[in-house]
Every structure is written in structure tokens, then in C-alpha cells.
């Protein structure tokens, strides 16, 4: 049976808005009402579940995060994944992209997955390179920015988004596929699915379990300063469409004559 892993991430800002931080301590208000499974990961979960529904695969969702990340895994399980793996260790706090890839490689390397699915970039950090680093660490091929994925036996064919259109690319499993939101419309789990998800297994692993130490994960860069960009002042807002249109036309005409 095909074994599929999907990488998922817990983010505090599912809506993509900046999280609220204190103005003096720059610390995030942790009670984020929007926290949960990164919406950028949901199409990948949906794709994996659809592939499993067609071919009888087992879908494992894998996350690295704190204990707080558990609801993100539960959400993916409610969408139809079979089991979860959470790598959770105090020493992982602040892990950079290479450390994250190393940890996930170690977690995924304990099993032999045919297909690993990842989103294009997370809603919070938006680095956009971690899946490729992970694939290289695992010695896997990587087919990325997929807007459509089809699997015929062990042949993977994808439509890869490009700057001005798309390419069709293909490879053989095992492989990592990076997907965009266009790949599948995520389902909204029913209450019954959500309740059922709570009894699905989530394996929790520490760094020791993975044979890694904090030394293996030390970052080779440091943030030395942070500047807050100056805020723009909010201007006039109208709900009177006719008045609004007149004003927009006037502003655009001014630019036209410049």
C-alpha cells in the first residue's frame, strides 16, 4: 500500500494577518483566535486524502512544533489523514529552515514514504525553500509548485506553475511534491469527522528519539535588529459608492496627466 506523508504546520495567523504583538515588549499575544493548521497546508492534505481514497494509501501528517501544534494535526486527521507525527522538543524553539528540514528528515526517515506532500510556503515565515531542502536531505526528487497532480502507478505527473504559465513535469516515486492552493479544494470536516479524529493516533517524538542533539541544529545566522516599518495613516473611507467612484476617477485622472 502506498504510504503518503503530508507536512503540516501550526500557525497563529490562519487569516494571514500579522499577529498582535505588544507595543513595548514586541511579544506576541499568544491567545490568537485564528491559530491552527496553516491554510497553505490544507490543499496538500486534501490531495493526499483524495489519492488515498482512490488507491487505498495510508496518509500520515507530520509536524514540528510545540505542544500547541497538536490541534493542527487533529484538523488534518479530521480531513481524512490516518495518523499523525508531532516532533516536539523545547530545544527546537527558534529552529531555522535548515534545522527544521533536518528534524523533519529524521522523522520521515524512520519510515519509508512513497510520496511526501508539502505546501509552497508557510503563512507565517514564508521562506519557501524548506521542502526542497528536506527532499535533498532525504535523497528524494522534488517536484514543486504543483497546481495539478496525477499519479499513475509510481509515475507522478504534475503541472508546475511558472512565472508566465505552467510546465508539465514528471518523475517516479518515491518523491516529494510541493503543492499550491490550486491543487485541491480542501474539504471542511464534519463534526463527526472532527470527533473521530480525536481517537486517531498521534505519535510524539523528541530530539533524542530522532537521534539528534541541539548541536546538530544550531543556526548559522542571527537576527541582530528589527525595524518596525513606519505605519501609514488611514485615510478617508466612504460607503457611498457614487461618491467613492467620483473620487477614484479624480485621483486616477491626476496621475494620467502627470
Amino acid at each position, binding site marked *: 500500500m502506498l504510504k503518503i506523508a503530508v507536512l503540516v504546520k501550526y500557525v497563529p*495567523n490562519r487569516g494571514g494577518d500579522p*499577529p498582535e*504583538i505588544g507595543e513595548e515588549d514586541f511579544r506576541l499575544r499568544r491567545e490568537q483566535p485564528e491559530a491552527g493548521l496553516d491554510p497553505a497546508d490544507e490543499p496538500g492534505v486534501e490531495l493526499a486524502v483524495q489519492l488515498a481514497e482512490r488507491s487505498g494509501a495510508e496518509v500520515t501528517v507530520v509536524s514540528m512544533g510545540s505542544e500547541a501544534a497538536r490541534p493542527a494535526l487533529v484538523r488534518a486527521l479530521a480531513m481524512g489523514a490516518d495518523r499523525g507525527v508531532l516532533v516536539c522538543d523545547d530545544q527546537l524553539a527558534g529552529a531555522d529552515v535548515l534545522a527544521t528540514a533536518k528534524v523533519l528528515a529524521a522523522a520521515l526517515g524512520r519510515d519509508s514514504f512513497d510520496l511526501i506532500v508539502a505546501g509552497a510556503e508557510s503563512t*507565517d*515565515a514564508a521562506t519557501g525553500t524548506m521542502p526542497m531542502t528536506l527532499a535533498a536531505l532525504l535523497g528524494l526528487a522534488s517536484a514543486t509548485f504543483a497546481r495539478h497532480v496525477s499519479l499513475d502507478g509510481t509515475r507522478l505527473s504534475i503541472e508546475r506553475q511558472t512565472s508566465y504559465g505552467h510546465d*508539465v*513535469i514528471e518523475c517516479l516515486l518515491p518523491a516529494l511534491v510541493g503543492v499550491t492552493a490550486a491543487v485541491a479544494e480542501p474539504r471542511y470536516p464534519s463534526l463527526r469527522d472532527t470527533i473521530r479524529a480525536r481517537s486517531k493516533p498521534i505519535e510524539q517524538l523528541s530530539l533524542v528519539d530522532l537521534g539528534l542533539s541541539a548541536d546538530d541544529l544550531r*543556526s548559522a545566522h542571527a537576527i541582530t535588529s*528589527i525595524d518596525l*516599518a513606519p505605519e501609514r495613516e488611514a485615510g478617508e473611507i466612504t460607503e457611498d459608492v457614487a461618491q467613492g467612484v467620483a473620487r477614484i476617477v479624480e485621483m486616477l485622472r491626476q496621475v494620467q496627466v502627470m
Partner: protein
Amino acid sequence: MARVVVFAEFDAQGALDTTTLENLTAARSLDSELCAVALGGHAAAAAATLAAYGADTIVVGDDSVFDEYMSEPAAFALEHVVGELEPELILFASSYDARDVAGRLQAALGCTLVSNVSEVLAVDRVRAVRALRLWPGRPGNLRGGVGGAKAIEVLRTGPGPMIVLTTAAATAPSPSQGRGHVGDLAVKVPDSCRRVRRVSRHETTADGVKLEQAKVVISGGRGLEDPANFSLLRELAAAIGNAAVGATRPVVDAGWVPYSMQVGQTGKTVRPEIYVAVGVSGAAQHVVGMKGAHRVIAINTDRNAPIFQLADFGVVGDAAEVLKEVLRGLAGE
């Protein structure tokens, strides 16, 4: 003298991407030896321009393997070049191809990587835009942006090199002749890198005004509700003249429009006279790419959308309806 490597990207005719020229321009200020790496069938055609923008050496790998197979041949070639030159810094754009190659190269080199860089300050120091930097459960790192956008300074503290992915339009490109010594890539790509094959390309040619150069940028977001409504944005751009159409990441991700139209942290940075945000919520990721606009007009049905907090003028209303009226108004009806 420190060495800097720039990964060159170019089209099927060998015409270089603007971001490559921007990276060369940025790298020239570092007082370093500048090496451009051009891989693909038309790499040789790109060499003269790379030299004209300051490359001292140009490594050309014109094997068709770089066009036929995704990311692994290029990452392999770059790993070889890095081994030979031992650069301090490797500059990439933020394109899909650049992210693929940079990600794999990071694994091969075990070095550090910084994305969304807006300014290269030194071979080991960069400024990056971060809408957010978050780590659940660890307050010390949970630093987001009030108003959505901020810059961080990042210093390499461990062994080199540092891989850097720059945002588009971070530096204005300008030519300045480098030594331009051209050499062939001195390694053959092994068959083990031939795994992900490009079967076909499907591209529409870009037309109209470039986003980075337009006086007016009209961007559409998910609030447009229907991909077909993008035609209204194009109509408006045509009616204004010297205007271009942009998009937010969610609608690019959803496949409504191509990546070349994306404005934001992982897309383009624009600084037009007027930025018209249509059905755009104002997510931090997007704001980073447009906050330099002289004036911002927002049209959104949601009175509480964050975009209104930074708009000079906002209309609460249905995007398609408002656009149609604006088109009529511009036509003098």
C-alpha cells in the same frame, strides 16, 4: 578578496531576468569578486550581459540537461562551483526555479539561507522583509509586525557561505562592466540528477506595462470572488494607461493568474504613484510588496479589512460594481 556568486536566470533567448541584473548590481557594492553562474541551453548568450552588469567571471553550463531536468542538475553544478570558488555569499532571486535550486543547494552545503532579502549590506549581513516571524510557544521569538511589515537585519554567525534569496525590485539595476572572463562549467552532471523531467512548457507571453515600472498598479485579491473579474482590472489598466495589473498570493496560488503578477513578500515589490487594491484584504505578506506606493486606494466589501488601515482613500462596496463605475467615469460617461 571575498567572492560572491550570482545565480543567473534567463529566458529561452538568453535574455536575463531583471532580478538577476538587480542581484549583480547589489553584489557590485560589496567590493568582492563577482561570479555569475548561467546554466541552460542559452547560457552563452547571457554571458555578455552578465559581464556588462559587473560579473568578473561567468561560469557557463550550456548542457541541455539544465532545461530538461528540474533543480537537481543546477544544484549539483552550483555545489561544484561553490567548492571551487568558496564564495562567502550566493545570491538568488525568489522565483520558483531559484527557490528549488537554493533549497537543494542548502542541503548539500549545510549552510544558512535567508529569504525575502531587500538589501545586501555585506557578504555576511543582509536586511530582509518579514511580515512575521513566529514560533508558537516561545514568546521571545514571536515577533510580528505592527501594521504588517518590518525589516530585520540578519548576520551570518557560522561557517559560510550564506545563501540569500532577494525580493524583486530590491535594487535598481544599472550596468557597470566587469572583467567578464567566461569559463565552461568543469563538471558533468551525473545521470542520478536526471529524475524530474520537464515534458512540456505552456506559457503566455507577458504584455503591457511592467508592474515595477507602472505609474498605477491595480491589484486583485480573493475579494474579487471570480477569476473572470480580473478582466475588469485589465480594462481599467488599459483605460488609465501606464498601468499594470497585480495580484495577491492567494489568487496566484489558486491559479487565477500567473506568478509573474504576484505582489508581496514572495512576489514583486512595487512603488507606483497610485496602488489600487481591489478585493485585497491587506494581509501582511501582501502589504510588504506595496507599502512604498505613493497613494493607496482600497475597494473592499469588508469595512474591517486591514487594507483600509493603510489606504489613503477607501470605498466599502462590491469590487466589480465599483470598477465598472470607475471605468464609466474615466470614459466620461
